[in-house]
């Protein structure tokens, strides 16, 4: 369909608009406008709407924009033969021709800018984490002065979600790791006929490193993410502001119960992990390495120092405190939109797991130096 026809009459360019000038045909229309080859801005241009069937703002806008690019302006352009409704529409569109285009794509930063922006963000985050730890510490001290403010019920229900509900998954994971570890160790030990040393290896590795690390990673993924999502959603719904206006401290209501719950739950989960991991090792030893369970336990008693077991348990509350702090902080930092809940939850899991592993490395070095 010829959307537009150009005729010259009495030294005036007449543009006849034809057909349905609607958004759905806009690609064809702008193509037709480009092919028009109208190039004489000093001649008067008349728009004729008598053949027009329909017109909408988008099409009107594109028409005016094109004419403007060709150098037409208010003094050289006139219109005739339009329906009254379309005249109003054209007037409305014409008033708005000066409006600048709005970039419909977000800005894309280059590599250096992105690295820079990420670094600055990280720095701010670490700085505010410190401030947050300060606030939580002060509020905890307050609790010692007035213990009635402690929310036992909330703490217990959080403990149930963080601790009890995580027992099956922690058991399964540590058990399987115990199996894998004993198997790998056994393959090596068998070559030297040193089967029995598998017990030493499994006991030490599970109690001292594997169980604390795995339990912490599982809790970070499970409960850390849950904390951020819960608190973040409350932030979006302005519930945190409501808590504050009611004269309560969001730290005492939301953060401390979670912090206490997770600090009690994680050592217990580590203990569960110790038992399950050793059970896994015992199973493989009995099957593959001809070490009966009785021999395994006797050897374990003889070689596993109590200190290794305690070191494993002692690391757990520290991991737990970091996970709770990061998770609650990220929840509080959620902006008032749905996307930021997701972003902060992701960030919580990443930060918690990284911190757990960093802390574990620090502990390994420190305990080595201390000779524990």
């Amino acid at each position, binding site marked *: 369909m010829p959307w537009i026809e150009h005729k010259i009459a009495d030294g005036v360019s007449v543009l006849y608009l034809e057909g349905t000038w*609607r*958004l*759905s045909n*806009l*690609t064809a229309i*702008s193509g037709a406008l480009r092919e028009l080859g109208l190039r004489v801005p000093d001649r008067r241009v008349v728009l004729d709407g008598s053949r027009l069937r329909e017109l*909408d*703002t*988008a099409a009107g*806008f*594109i028409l005016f*924009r094109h004419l403007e690019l060709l150098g037409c302006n208010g003094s050289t352009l006139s219109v005739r033969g339009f329906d009254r*409704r379309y005249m*109003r*529409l054209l007037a*409305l*569109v014409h008033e*708005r021709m000066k*409006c*600048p*285009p*709005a*970039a*419909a*794509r*977000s*800005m894309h930063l280059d590599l250096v800018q992105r690295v820079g922006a990420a670094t600055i963000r990280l720095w701010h985050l670490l700085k505010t984490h410190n401030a947050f730890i300060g606030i939580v510490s002060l509020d905890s001290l307050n609790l010692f002065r007035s213990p009635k403010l402690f929310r036992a019920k909330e703490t217990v229900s959080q403990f149930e979600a963080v601790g009890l509900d995580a027992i099956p998954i922690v058991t399964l994971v540590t058990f399987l790791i115990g199996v894998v570890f004993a198997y790998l160790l056994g393959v090596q030990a068998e070559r030297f006929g040193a089967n029995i040393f598998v017990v030493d290896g499994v006991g030490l590795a599970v109690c001292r490193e594997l169980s604390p690390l795995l339990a912490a990673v599982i809790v970070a993924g499970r409960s850390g993410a849950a904390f951020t999502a819960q608190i973040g959603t409350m932030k979006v719904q302005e519930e945190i502001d409501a808590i504050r206006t009611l004269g309560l401290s969001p730290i005492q209501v939301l953060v401390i119960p979670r912090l206490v719950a997770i600090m009690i739950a994680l050592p217990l989960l580590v203990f569960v992990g110790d038992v399950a991991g050793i059970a896994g090792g015992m199973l493989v030893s009995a099957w593959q390495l001809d070490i009966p369970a009785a021999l395994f336990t006797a050897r374990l008693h003889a070689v596993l120092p109590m200190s290794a077991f305690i070191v494993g348990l002692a690391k757990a509350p520290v991991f737990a405190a970091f996970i709770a702090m990061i998770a609650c902080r990220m929840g509080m930092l959620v*902006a*008032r*939109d*749905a*996307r*930021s809940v997701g972003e902060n939850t992701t960030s919580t899991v990443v930060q918690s797991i990284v911190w757990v592993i960093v802390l574990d490395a620090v502990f390994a070095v420190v305990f080595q130096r201390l000779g524990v």
Partner: protein
Amino acid sequence: MDMVLEVNSIVTRFGSEVIHDGVSFSVKGGEVVALIGGSGTGKSVLLKEVIGLMRPCGGEVHLLGTDVWNSSEDEMNALRRRFGMLFQDGALFSSLTVAENIAVPFREHTNLSADIISSLVGFNLDLVGLTADTGRKSPAQLSGGMRKRVALARALTLEPEILFLDEPTSGLDPVGARAFDKLVRVLSDSFGLTVFLVTHDLDTLLSIIDRAIALSGGRVIADGPVDEVMRIDHPWIRDYFSARAAVVQGGS
């Protein structure tokens, strides 16, 4: 003019609770019609049933000649491009900037070049009284009134034949609310746009509405020009309009 929207004896029940007990009305092209009623009379539910988001227990809805609840998904998709809906809180996509939000319908339903789209987005922003700067912001950075304007711009992008507004002025200050009303009226007059809105706002009702439909007790209790509806003798209508009179008297 033809009927743009026809609603025939809609029945809605939630469990044993009857929300609509045979609601019928129609809207002509180019009209600005308000649906009023107390809280819990099912105004927003009715709106959802009209635009095909929630199936009524009985009755028929004909929107722009399409039977909303007896059409194929293709017919409904074609219909969805012909009406615009403004949700109560704007329902902007939080992961996109304002300009990207407005560009979504262009991107999804047309194959225009990026250059043309950004000009059209700028035009639409200007149409609802926002500057091109606003386009770069994210919805979280906007005030309630601006969010509604952006949502209106998005609802207008595909040049709808009928526009549905769910409490367009709730949460706006009186000045912002009147400006929004005026904008809706101007758009309706200029584009011959049919507007169907749910509102509690008496000022909206008294300033830009051609016709009001009042819901009460699951039925339409009044349907006509606002000054006629005002005179109907019904307890809820009396209370509704006298609340306004009380405010005016108290102020003077």
